């Protein structure tokens, strides 16, 4: 078979796999709210089922991540900095990992959500999920950005989306502080080890939005300056 310079010139574009990865991360995180709703309701069977879903989706995302890394050799010329792209991938990966950690903790330690904390905790994970959705929406614009050479109207549109994502992260921070305050008030009534793990859970729930925001702010570097 004769080789063709032109055929070899085109490497596998990393942008579609990036988008597929983020889509999986998004559907993985979508199980976190039902997970905590089940925890609040004390429904152990649903907790286990949601956790299994989260594990499965996280695993699928990992496969894409590994394949993407393996197919992005240094000799590739990309329209964006290779390192930034790989870092975004890492942040996307972190979001799914966080969801997995949350699921593992609540399931393995059979965490019981103290009633006063239930509503704000659900609000916090919901906010994390919204931030993740916003990050996924930004990543979904990658192919349009590529079409436009990362400039012009499309670039400013994405800029606005990234701003909204940052707002969502701030909202999540605020909710995180609120849940922390409630937990602090409950400290005397709860088992100390449980308290420590709830602080850990709250932090992880806040990380969903943190990593989502990082996806957006790193992507901002792609936009023409």
């Amino acid at each position: 078979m004769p080789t063709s310079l032109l055929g070899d010139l085109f490497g596998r574009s990393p942008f579609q796999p990036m988008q597929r990865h983020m889509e999986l991360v998004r559907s993985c995180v979508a199980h976190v709210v039902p997970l905590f709703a089940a925890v609040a309701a004390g429904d152990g069977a649903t907790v286990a089922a949601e956790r299994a879903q989260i594990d499965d989706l996280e695993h699928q995302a990992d496969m894409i991540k590994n394949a993407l890394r393996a197919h992005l050799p240094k000799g590739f010329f990309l329209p964006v900095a290779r390192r930034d792209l790989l870092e975004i991938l890492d942040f996307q990966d972190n979001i799914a990992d966080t969801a997995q950690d949350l699921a593992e903790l609540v399931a393995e330690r059979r965490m019981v959500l103290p009633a006063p904390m239930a509503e704000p905790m659900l609000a916090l994970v919901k906010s994390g999920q919204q931030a993740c959705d916003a990050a996924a929406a930004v990543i979904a614009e990658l192919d349009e950005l590529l079409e436009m050479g990362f400039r012009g109207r499309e670039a400013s549109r994405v800029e606005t989306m990234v701003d909204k994502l940052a707002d969502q992260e701030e909202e999540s921070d605020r909710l995180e502080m609120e849940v922390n305050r409630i937990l602090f008030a409950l400290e005397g009534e709860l088992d100390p080890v449980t308290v420590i793990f709830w602080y850990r859970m709250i932090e992880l729930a806040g990380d969903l939005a943190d990593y989502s925001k990082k996806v957006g702010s790193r992507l901002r570097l792609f936009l023409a300056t």
Partner: protein
Amino acid sequence: MDHTTAFVYLAIAAGFYMAWAIGANDVANAMGTSVGSRALTLRQAVVVAAIFEFAGAVFAGGNVTETIRKGIVDPAAVAANPQYLIFGMLAALLAAGTWLILATRAGWPVSTSHTIVGAVVGFAVVGLGPDAVHWPKVGQIAASWVTSPLVAGGIAFVLFTVVRRTILEQEDPFARARRYGPFYIFVVFLILGLLTAFEGLKHLNIDLSVGQAVAVAVAIGLTAALIGAAFIHRIHIDPEADRDFHYANVERIFAVLQICTACSVAFAHGSNDVANAIGPLAAVVNVAASGNVAQASPIPPWVMLLGAGGILAGLAMWGYRIIETIGRKITELTPTRGFAAEFSTATTIVVASLTGMPVSTTHTLVGAVLGVGLARGIGALDLRVIGGILVSWLITLPAGALLASFFFFFFKGLFS
């Protein structure tokens, strides 16, 4: 002179084989981009290639043929022994043909232009001595191999930026593309028409005045623009296509534009590469007919047709399969990118053809695609290909030269 007749037939066979190899291998690179972006189906690509390769070879292929035929070897060096030119050119054809077979077997992407130039220089240096070579001309040719990808890359970069600014970044890109599309088509054909009318037709003994040439080019441009406009106006916004990807409809319009640039690349390729096959053949025929190394004799039209026919045969028998293979590999190239890359390639090659420079269409196209990539237009380009190009230069020239001198001494020892 029975030997001479045998040599002419041998040269015809070897020249036809070279043309066949060009049609089988090289045309694929010119057309693969259009199939890859789905601007053309495989069948359409073959038809377009057939028509425009043929036209390019016949209308604008004369100058490069002249370069190969008598630009590289100094006629004075063979004036005393005209049969040496016959041996040499035949040796060059056989060497290039052999090298192409070997390289293709090994999977090396070599250029026919580089091979034939290496072979002609090789037989001249070894067989006739270094003084027999027009070194300034060879220097120009070598320089053109470096400049053609660079120039094409530069044009592609600018062109893609212009397309982005005037269409993609605008408020309603679809309406913009519809309005400006025919204008872009006009420019494509105007440039090709002007270049061809001014320079290419001389070999067909058609001499146009400046006014006539401009009029012909404008007429060609307008006709193409009108036809293109008719096609573009049949495209309406398809909301289904835009649901996932906002610019899908704009790309549908550019698919029409890319058909035009595909035609022009095929034309350009025909105008440049046919010479690799028929340049040496024309030299052999010329000496055989006149018995001396006459400067003024024109290229016989049947030689031109033989070359063009060989390209078509190669395309029909084998080339279409390679077009399909390449097309599958480069789906990342969308019509806006394909348009920019092909337009700049075609323009660069036609200029090279008309100044008599045998360049590599594939390398030029690679340069153009990299230009679009520099404008941040393509997902991922594998720069290791550039290393492959450099290696193919380094290997092809000595290989062509070595094989050609071998064949030359073989004929010389046998017949003189």
